[in-house]
C-alpha cells in the first residue's frame, strides 16, 4: 500500500431507492489531491463515508490506507477544553505526541490561548478549527475532508489550503468534498454530476 493511498473500483451506491453514483473508479497516489464536487444531495458525503468505512452498503471495492476523516460533525466534544480534545485524539490514535506539540498545533490553527476554554464556549468556526488541529496529529497518509471550509472565515480557509499543501508535501493524499473552489492549483476533480 506504499504505492497507492486509495483504490476505488466500480463503486456504486443506492440510497432511498435513488442511485447516487455508479461505477466510480478513483486512485490516489501519494501527493494527490482530488476535489469532490456536485450539487446538494449528489452523494459526496455518502461517498466519503463509504471510503471511511462508515457506510458499508455500496457496490464495488474500496481499498484505503490508514485515513483521517473530517465529516459534517466535527468530532469535537463541547464539554472538553480545547487541549483535552486534542489530547484524547492523540491517545486514541496511539501517537505519542508531547503536550507542547499539541499547543503548537493549536497555535497553527489560530487558537493560541484557548487551550483551557471549553469547546462549548467557542463559536461555530472556532470549533471547526479545533477539528482542523486534529488533522495531521496522527500519521494517516489519507485525508477525507467533507466541506472543510464550513463556518471558516477567509483566514481559516487559507489555513485549510495550507494544511492540505503541507500534507501533500509529506506524501499524503487528500480527497475533499467542497462547494467552493478548492484553491489548490494541481488538484484533480471528481464531479458527481446532477442530483438524483
Amino acid at each position, binding site marked *: 500500500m506504499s504505492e497507492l493511498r486509495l483504490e476505488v473500483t466500480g463503486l456504486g451506491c*443506492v440510497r432511498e*431507492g435513488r442511485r447516487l453514483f455508479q461505477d466510480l473508479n478513483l486512485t490516489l497516489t501519494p501527493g494527490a489531491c482530488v476535489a469532490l464536487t456536485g450539487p446538494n444531495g449528489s452523494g459526496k458525503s455518502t461517498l466519503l463515508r463509504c471510503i471511511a468505512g462508515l457506510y*458499508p*452498503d455500496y457496490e464495488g471495492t474500496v481499498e484505503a490506507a490508514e485515513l483521517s476523516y473530517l465529516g459534517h460533525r466535527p468530532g469535537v466534544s463541547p464539554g472538553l477544553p480545547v487541549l483535552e480534545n486534542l489530547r484524547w485524539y492523540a491517545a486514541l490514535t496511539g501517537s505519542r505526541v508531547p503536550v507542547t506539540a499539541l499547543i503548537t498545533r493549536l497555535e497553527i490553527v489560530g487558537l493560541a490561548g484557548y487551550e483551557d476554554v471549553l469547546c462549548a464556549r467557542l463559536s461555530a468556526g472556532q470549533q471547526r478549527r479545533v477539528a482542523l488541529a486534529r488533522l495531521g496529529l496522527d500519521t494517516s497518509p489519507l485525508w477525507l475532508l467533507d466541506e472543510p471550509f464550513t463556518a471558516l472565515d477567509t483566514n481559516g480557509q487559507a489555513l485549510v489550503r495550507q494544511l492540505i499543501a503541507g500534507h501533500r508535501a509529506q506524501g499524503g493524499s487528500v480527497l475533499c468534498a467542497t462547494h467552493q473552489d478548492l484553491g489548490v492549483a494541481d488538484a484533480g476533480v471528481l464531479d458527481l454530476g446532477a442530483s438524483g
Partner: protein
Amino acid sequence: MTVTETLKRWWHQLGSPRWFYEISGPWQTGFAVLALLLLAIGTVWGLAIAPMDYQQGNSFRIIYVHVPTAIVSQTVYMLMGAAGLVLLVWRMKLADMVLAAAVPFGMSMTALALFTGAVWGKPTWGAWWVWDARTTSMLVLLFLYFGLYALRQAIPRNEAAGRACAVLALVGTVNIPIIKYSVDWWLTLHQPATFKLTEAPSMPPEMWLPLLLNVLGIYCFFAANLIGRLKLTILERESGTRWVRELIAGRSP
C-alpha cells in the same frame, strides 16, 4: 477439493436472493402440505384418541399445542441468532431477510406457548401464572422478540436495521439455554423434561406419538411460512432489479 468447491458455490448461491426465490417455490408447497397433514393427524389423534393422563385427566391434552409451540419458538430464535452471525460476518443478504421474516412467527409461537401454559397452569398448578425460572425466561424471550420487532421499526434503513437486529439476536441467544435448563438448575414449578435425548420419554408411545407428529408439523409450518415471507421480502427489497421487473412483467403481460 471438489467438495470444498461445491460447498463454496452453494454458499455463494445461498447469498443470492434471486437463486433462492427461484428454487424455493416447490419447497414451500411441499412443507405446507406436510404441515397440514402432520398437524391434522397429530391434533385429532392427540385431542380425541390418545388416552388421558391418570392425574390431570383431559387438561393434559393442552400438551399437544403447548409443547410444539414452546419448542419451535426457541428454535426460531436460535435460527435468528445464526442468521445474525452470518449477516454480521459474511454480509449475506438472505440472512438479513431471514432475520426479518422469522420474527412474527417466533413472536406468535412464543405468545401461544405462554398462553397455553397459562391455561394449563390454572387447573394443574392452581395459578395462571407463577414467577419461576422457566416461565420468566420464556417471558423474556417474548420481550426479545418484541425488541427485535421494535428495533427494526425504529431504524429507517433496511440494511442498518438488519445489522442492529443481528446484534440483538446474537446477544439474546444466551436466553435459550436458560429456558431449556432452568428446570434442572433451579427449583421450578414447571415440570422437568419429559423428553430427554439420552433416555426414553417418561410417557407411553400412544401419548407421545401424536405429540411428535405435531412437533414435526409445526416445524414444516414454520418452514413454509418462512419461505413465503422470504419470497415476499425478496420481491420487495429487490424491486429495483431487472430480474424482478422481468418476473412481474412476465406474470402480467
